[in-house]
């Protein structure tokens, strides 16, 4: 009595597997809770979304001005005066990187890691997503200015495919470089 047999071989693997499944399920539940709450918060705060749209528009305008491009800005809309006529770029909420940032934060928030590690993830990830979004916006503005026919092609790839890849890169780098495995049996 009192002498419990240590799980071995297949049994150990099975235990590890079920622990992982529990951890993964908990991650998914937490992810969706954070994602839903944050998304609904943005719906309740339309002023904040408008502010991010204007901030991104102003930043894109700043860089285009720096590069010497000819355009006018009216609210969240940039009109480029190109050789082939006027081209209009309207910045909407999806162009701000806000939702990608929220999804990234939901992943970081739901993943089993220490608070300090999560804060490092936020401190690195949020500015990185914002910077990438700015590069993307300036780049597609230049495509619209010079090669209008390629706009849809680059917009599609850089908006969705590029963003998912970059977000995943940030998450994996954070998981592999910042998050340290918890010592066996220790709660996180």
């Amino acid at each position: 009595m009192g002498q419990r047999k240590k799980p071995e071989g297949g049994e150990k693997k099975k235990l590890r597997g079920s622990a992982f499944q529990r951890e993964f399920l908990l991650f998914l539940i937490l992810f969706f809770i954070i994602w839903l709450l944050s998304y609904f918060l943005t719906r309740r705060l339309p002023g904040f979304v408008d502010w991010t749209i204007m901030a991104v528009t102003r930043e894109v305008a700043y860089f285009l001005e720096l590069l010497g491009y000819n355009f006018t800005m009216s609210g969240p809309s940039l009109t480029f005066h190109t050789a082939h006529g006027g081209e209009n770029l309207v910045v909407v909420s999806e162009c701000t990187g806000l939702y990608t940032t929220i999804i990234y934060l939901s992943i970081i928030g739901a993943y089993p890691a220490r608070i300090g590690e999560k804060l490092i993830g936020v401190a690195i990830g949020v500015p990185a997503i914002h910077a990438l979004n700015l590069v993307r916006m300036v780049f597609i503005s230049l495509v619209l200015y010079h090669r209008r026919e390629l706009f849809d092609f680059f917009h599609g790839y850089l908006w969705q495919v590029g963003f998912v890849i970059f977000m995943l890169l940030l998450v994996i780098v954070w998981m592999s470089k910042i998050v340290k495995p918890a010592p066996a049996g220790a709660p996180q």
Partner: protein
Amino acid sequence: MSENTNEGSVRGAAAHEVLFFFLRLIGASIVLYLIYYFLVGKPYVQFIALLAKPILSVFGYPIIMTEAARITEDIALNPFVFLSLVAATLHVSWRVKLRGAGIGLVILALANTLTVTLVFVSNYRNSEAWWTGTELLNLTNNFFLPILLWLVLLPIRSAFSFFRDRNA
């Protein structure tokens, strides 16, 4: 000291693994995006619009195929993100990859069909609540579902050393 050296080399190997995974991912995504843009995109968009037609009729609304195709064009890139992730993953047999890719593509097609249906329902009902739900579903489908399916349908834990080390 030897433990530190060992840990350092493990971390270095993990960094290489992550770097090469992302290089493969970018390569695969560019190839697949070109295939989508020039070959598969239009038929896929029409296929999703056709799938949405009977579901929309359950709600008693007609589908406008040109509009459905336009909406699908904006939301239908997630299969290519998912396939790029599958293609870039090493140390997983082709059989497992094909099985995972097949199941994932079916799920993503259904998710995209649901989104197209909800866009039409939201539009016909002119309801803010339906639009909110549709946008939420669309964002989840585009930015999280491909990653989730990749994690669930492929044995990712055994494909990456840092996951293996975490769970050892």
